[in-house]
């Protein structure tokens, strides 16, 4: 019972790290980025190549995965995304779906279509038992890392100068520009950081979610659900939504295996009807 809760939390945390970048780009920049999963996939493959082929230690590789995805995100933002912020949502949808298709085919070409896994250190394998609850070490690590990240993000957004600039840039670009805030570079940095987080999530997730070229398509729906349920106006919304989804999904599969994915889809639709701005969003926010 508690093991299920634990698994659900780990799964939810992972979803959060994967999706929070999307919630930032979507909510703050009003950009529908369906290609978010492609950045996560890039991080996953970076980890696999580094650990399996180049023999880089696992931890170093995880951090590298973050930077690889962040770098790709930064370049993509400067080269392409910057042109579509102001385009209609339809264009954004088309463009990012196009990117997903390209990423899927490119990953297939470069890495092959089978699932790949990174070798993880022995210390992270197996379970430990605390008060009779069996906890997977790997999942425990995910909870620790992702929890710390969530706190860090919240802190950065709310308390730092960068955070307030970002919020200002989002609330009213023109005024923010007038105040001397370099909106373009803030967006680029934020986008890169969001992509990096996705990459980190992708790297950590290979072990649990599996990694193959269809990753961006397979999980896109999950990311979108997190963002829709959580709302896009803060970090706490998607965080709580991820946890809710993670636990609901795992518990749903455990207790009523017959229902399968119904649980989360139903949650999504109910939330959308009941509170279109997201379950945890502030009222009146956009």
């Amino acid at each position, binding site marked *: 019972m508690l093991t299920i809760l634990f698994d659900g939390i780990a799964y939810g945390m992972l979803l959060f790290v994967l999706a929070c970048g999307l919630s930032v780009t979507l909510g703050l920049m009003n950009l529908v980025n369906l290609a978010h999963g492609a950045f996560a996939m890039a991080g996953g493959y970076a980890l696999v190549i580094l650990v399996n082929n180049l023999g880089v230690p696992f931890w170093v590789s995880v951090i590298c995965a973050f930077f690889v995805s962040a770098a790709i995100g930064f370049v993509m933002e400067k080269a392409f995304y910057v042109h579509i912020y102001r385009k209609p949502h339809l264009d954004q949808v088309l463009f990012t779906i196009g990117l997903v298709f390209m990423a899927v085919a490119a990953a297939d070409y470069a890495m*092959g279509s089978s699932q790949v896994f990174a070798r993880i250190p022995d210390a992270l394998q197996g379970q430990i038992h605390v008060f009779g609850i069996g906890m997977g070490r790997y999942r425990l690590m995910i909870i620790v890392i992702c929890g710390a990240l969530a706190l860090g993000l919240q802190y950065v957004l709310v308390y730092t100068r960068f955070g307030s600039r970002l919020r200002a840039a989002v609330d009213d670009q023109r005024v923010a520009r007038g105040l001397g805030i370099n909106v373009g570079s803030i967006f680029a940095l934020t986008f890169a950081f969001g992509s990096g987080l996705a990459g980190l999530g992708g790297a950590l997730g290979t072990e649990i979610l599996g990694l*193959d070229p269809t990753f961006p398509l397979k999980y896109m729906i999950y990311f979108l659900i997190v963002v829709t349920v959580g709302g896009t106006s803060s970090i706490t919304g998607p965080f709580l939504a991820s946890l809710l989804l993670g636990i609901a999904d795992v518990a749903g599969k455990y207790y009523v295996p017959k229902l399968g994915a119904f649980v989360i889809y139903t949650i999504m639709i109910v939330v959308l009807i009941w509170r279109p701005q997201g379950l945890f969003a502030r009222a009146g926010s956009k």
Partner: protein
Amino acid sequence: MRQFVKFAAGMAMAGLIAGGAYAQDTVKVGLVISMTGSQASTGKQIKAAVDLYMKEHGDTVAGKKVQVILRDTGSVPDNAKRLAQELIVNDKVSVVAGFEVTPAAMAVAPLSAEAKVVELVMAAGTASITEKSPYIVRTSFTLPQSSAIMADWAANNNIKKVVTIVSDYAPGADAEKWFIDTFKKNGGQILETIKAPLANPDFAPFLQRAADAKPDAIFVFVPSGQGATFMKQYTERGLDKAGIKVIGTGDVTDDDLLPQMGDAVIGAVTAHMYSADHDSAMNKKYVADFTKAAGFRPNFMSVGGYDGMHLIYEALKKTGGKADGDSLIAAMKGMKWESPRGPISIDPETRDIVQNIYMRKVEKKGGQLYNVEFETFKDVKDPAKIKK
């Protein structure tokens, strides 16, 4: 912009004109497999095996040139049907081959019956497929073959209580049914049966449920490609340490993915018709050549493709190059040969494959993980058809 219009128009022309050219001395084989989408790894195995066979044996047999036309289904059964139909109607192929998933194979069956064209199933493993058209022949395996033998072995090897986890589609249902029936007949006890969605990434909750039932072993069937995720999560959950064994059909310890699964899979026992470790000179050569040409290890899907080509070649030799459906299928019935997996034959009555099923255990050999065979059940027919 002009260019784009020209480009589009050019492509339109090219697309519509393509096809056509058809020579009497060519035998065309339509290969309908998934090169993209969720089943892509299987498609690539088959493609590589077909290429290898043609490289080794040349493209001329009985005075005819064999031409393989590859079509990608994108892992979508509807496409399989349309592509097969086009291949039959426009390209006038003599054989449609491939079909890694049951729905694709089933969807094409009516066509094969209507057009009297041989449908050669190289991968899909649901027992009933070959009954859907008198022109279907199979070179892969059927799930009842492996599952029933697995159940026999388990019951005789101190496994009393089992939880089954299978993917929720026809082959899964086949595997589950035949394992349970045979296992119960041998006095075993099934604690729980779990069906995991086919497109399910996360086995953790199902494994937890299985673990909580405290069985001696978990019987598992997942399609080729998902085995690694399953085994990872099995270890992660500490089920190996809890003394719960994994038994299953060979799909779960797929040779292609096995090297990546980590040492935790060591000891998993499966029943299947092919292992890359199979001890024969022919297989050694096959594995070496295949790995060299394709860059990955051949798995059980690849031998289906390899033997499928062999069957086509041999049938053509027997008919003296006659490639109509009736002659080919007649020639294929009862064909016997030595494959990398061991001796196999085509059952003249059911057109299904008869082959040895091996009990294998995952072991480390020379630093690599392999399914090492330790017991052989000779000439196993599809039990689902014997019963009738």
